[in-house]
């Protein structure tokens, strides 16, 4: 009995030490694996960034040659020829937008997205982005309405990136709304904890998003319908980038939607802090 009493603590201590050593070894191994995965992730991001950049060069040449033909610089085209060349240009520009999205995503992943800050009116951004989409809205037979509160205060942020966010949301609204439907953009000032902010809403009467997919749409590469036969194509990065850009401004981007009745996407941008 006395021998067991004196011997048992040593045995237990030894077992504990062994266990501790094993855990430490596992910990070191886990840290090494994490470092390796991070390094590989960085390599992949760099690769995506490089390949996106390289894809732009031949696309640029294709679009320029096609525009030279379309504009009759090498001689007049008949209507069918012009239609065909316009198809090349539209396809090229769509591809270029997708490459641009992938490049933005890669930059965001590498924390290389920077903001070019200025003070601007959100009404101008809304006006510009909606004007760019007017012909598409007309072609699809949709109604687009804009409701921007008068005398909205100036926001401080990156005008181009906010335009990109709004363009993405409006583009999605148009894409996912069948002919005859409505899309709208609204902006108003709202109170917030740390001062005021501008709330922008982009809504549609389109196909909507089921509640179980509300988080999915913001996830990188995810699409609600990712089947090869899906009707709507894209990189699956648009909303991931949009949310990232809004968050860089310390704003928020979220959605409310019911399947079959349409979607409303909202984002906020903090106002210029008032000077004392």
């Amino acid at each position: 009995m006395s021998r067991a009493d004196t011997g048992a603590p040593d045995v237990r201590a030894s077992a504990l030490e062994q266990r501790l050593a094993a855990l430490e070894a596992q910990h070191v191994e886990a840290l090494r694996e994490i470092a390796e995965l991070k390094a590989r992730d960085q390599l992949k991001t760099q690769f995506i960034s490089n390949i996106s950049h390289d894809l732009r060069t031949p696309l640029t040449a294709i679009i320029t040659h096609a525009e030279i033909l379309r504009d009759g610089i090498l001689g007049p085209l008949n209507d069918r020829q012009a239609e065909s060349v316009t198809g090349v240009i539209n396809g090229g520009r769509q591809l270029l937008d997708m490459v641009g999205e992938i490049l933005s995503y890669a930059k965001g992943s590498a924390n290389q997205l920077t903001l070019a800050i200025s003070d601007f009116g959100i009404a101008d951004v809304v006006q510009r982005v909606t004007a760019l989409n007017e012909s598409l809205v007309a072609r699809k037979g949709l109604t687009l309405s804009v409701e921007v509160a008068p005398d909205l205060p100036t926001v401080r942020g990156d005008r181009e990136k906010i335009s990109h966010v709004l363009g993405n949301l409006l583009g999605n609204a148009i894409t996912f709304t069948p002919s005859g439907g409505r899309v709208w953009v609204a902006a108003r000032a709202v109170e917030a904890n740390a001062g005021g902010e501008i709330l922008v809403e982009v809504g549609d009467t389109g196909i909507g998003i089921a509640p179980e997919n509300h988080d999915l749409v913001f996830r990188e590469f995810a699409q609600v319908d990712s089947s090869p036969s899906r009707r709507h194509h894209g990189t699956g990065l648009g909303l991931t980038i949009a949310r990232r850009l809004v968050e860089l401004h310390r704003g928020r981007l979220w959605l409310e939607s019911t399947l079959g009745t349409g979607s409303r996407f909202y984002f906020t941008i903090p106002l210029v802090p008032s000077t004392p």
Partner: protein
Amino acid sequence: MLLVDDSALVTGALRVLLEETGHRVTTADSVASATAAALAEVPDVLLLDLTLPDGNGLEVLDRLRAEDRLPRTVVALTGHDDEALAAHCRSAGCREVVVKPVSVRVLIAKMREWVGEEAS
């Protein structure tokens, strides 16, 4: 005018456009060849890609400035729509920053403006 881009695809397309709209075009594909071409004959307009195999396109401006041979109009050509980069180009002496692919209609109008001012 001098057109600088390391991609023959890009210079090929822009050369067709610019020559067909009445401009005399010289091309170069590196900082060294662009500098040599601009020193041999100062162009009225320099369209300058930023990413060149032997350095940043803006280095061409530094070298030409050192020789007091800067073209009157320098326009940066870039694949990146990035305001910080554009500001950097303007501070380096570029009159404008054009993001590729520039619309053919826009480039024709702008060339007319740049060359027109040179002639006046």
